[in-house]
């Protein structure tokens, strides 16, 4: 999907997960949750989809998820049952670094 710009918000179609993009991907990718492509935050959720069992590990509010390969970083703003994936590949959490103090 296109347009994973920093600040863009996306939500899961099969659970409560909501995210905001913090760092954009280097190329176009497919961002999924619970096994289905995520939709823009403002769009209406389609009916009749069920979470895929293999992508039901859950996402936690406040955690940043980062994918080394594509460089995308996403902040989960609402927790839910689905796992975040990129083209079916699970996205792991990123550990908090020291402050970007300036000061």
């Amino acid at each position: 999907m296109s347009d994973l710009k920093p600040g863009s918000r996306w939500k899961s179609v099969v659970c409560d997960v909501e995210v905001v993009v913090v760092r954009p991907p280097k190329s176009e990718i497919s961002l999924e949750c619970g096994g289905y492509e995520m939709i823009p935050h403002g769009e209406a959720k389609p009916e009749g989809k069920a979470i895929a069992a293999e992508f039901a590990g859950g996402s936690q509010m406040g955690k940043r998820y980062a994918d080394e390969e594509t460089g995308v970083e996403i902040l989960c703003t609402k927790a839910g049952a689905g796992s975040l994936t990129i083209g079916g590949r699970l996205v792991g959490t990123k550990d908090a670094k020291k402050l970007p103090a300036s000061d």
Partner: protein
Amino acid sequence: MHTALLLEMAADAAPDRLAFGRRAEGLTFAEAKRRAHHGAAFLEQLGGTNVAFVGLNGPALPVAVFAAGMLARPFAPLNYRLPDADLNKLLARTAPSAAIVDDEMIGRLEPAPGVTLVTRSAFEAACRMPGDCDAQFLDVDHDIAVLLFTSGTTGEPKAAILRHANLTSYVISTVEFLGADEGEAALVSVPPYHIAGISAVLTGVYGGRRIVHLEAFTPEAWVEAAAAEGITHAMVVPTMLGRILDILEARGERLPSLKALSYGGGRMPLPVIERALDMLPHVDFVNAYGLTETSSTISVLGPDDHRLALYSDDEAVKRRMGSVGRPLPSLELEIRDPDGKALPPGQSGEIYVRGPQVSGEYAHKKMVSADGWFATNDGGWMDEEGYLFVEGRLDDVIVRGGENMSPGEIEDVLREHPNVDDVAVLGVPDDQWGEAVAAVIVAKDGQPSPEELAAWVKARLRSTKTPQVWAFRPALPYNDTGKLLRRQLKADMAGKLPAKA
């Protein structure tokens, strides 16, 4: 561990990386260290115990800071914006000292016993001497690193003492050594006599990030420097941010190189930070709360905390946009009642802090308890997850009929009104209640009526917190580090406020 070692480490590990100044004419870390060494030798010849500095930001400032550090002499930057008489008084208090003074400012200074004046250009020339400096300095204890004169609430400014141990422990526990990528650059527009101006130099150097100084802040100059120098990191005080956003909007500029923007030194209006987050989603925003006496930052609201507060629909999470985040892991922080008892989450009291970076010492007194706790004189509370909310200076608390009210809470509510640009809430003497609540409003896009504003406050806070006295002004007085000058405003308004509504 002492401050000059921070520069020496960076110079050893990244000698050719740019340390200070614009790309075209910057100093590398190796060159900065070489100049600081020459500067130290020069200062040593001038004698004195302290090194005073009266001048604008620029590469000579960090060189002077580290030169003083090499000599183990306290560095005392002075506020050049003070009236001449006050500046001269402070200068005299630094004696015996060598004072580096901007060429344009030296005419303002009178000879003071024990103070040797030298122009900035003479200092810089000495630092630029060719070759390495082989002067060896006495191996004395590095004790006091910096003396900062804080604006006192009463009488003369107090000289706050920051020891090498305080400053270096702060730097090392919050910054990763050479953690900055090559090519990163920090824009510092906070003056040298402010704690953030000093800590920016130390954290910048230790992190390996080039520092670009803005001599004098205007939002236009800031935006131009940020774009021209590929600035990745910056620190501003809240009163600067709104003006910067206006320029960015007017020019269609979004500063794509900017990675992180820290702010602190005063209350950030919620509408401003929300506008900033919306306009600059690629930027990590950091709210850093701290005091001179604590070597600057003690609590931080991080970039993701900001995003969560903006986008979450959890009320407790959203509320944190008005917090200063969580205390640094290297510190202990407590909220205490007037009897000194620690309070649980949700209850307001005075903020106390303890840790290696906390000084709390002044030239003539120690304001830290025997077991190391420093009373900040700021009121606040913590939520269940440890997020700190600062209500404001305890001295500013309004006491009306036995009820304590922080101006900050009422100001925040009024700022959300679409016709309010800025506001200050003060206590004014009242025969019946002790104090009455007065609000001084700077209006925008139309003139709101006191009745309308009172209703606005009443709908959001208790009715006793609704201001009884209203005044309108074109602007409020701020100092150059963004602090609202409450006492000055109170003095200005004395006798001019309208009768109670």
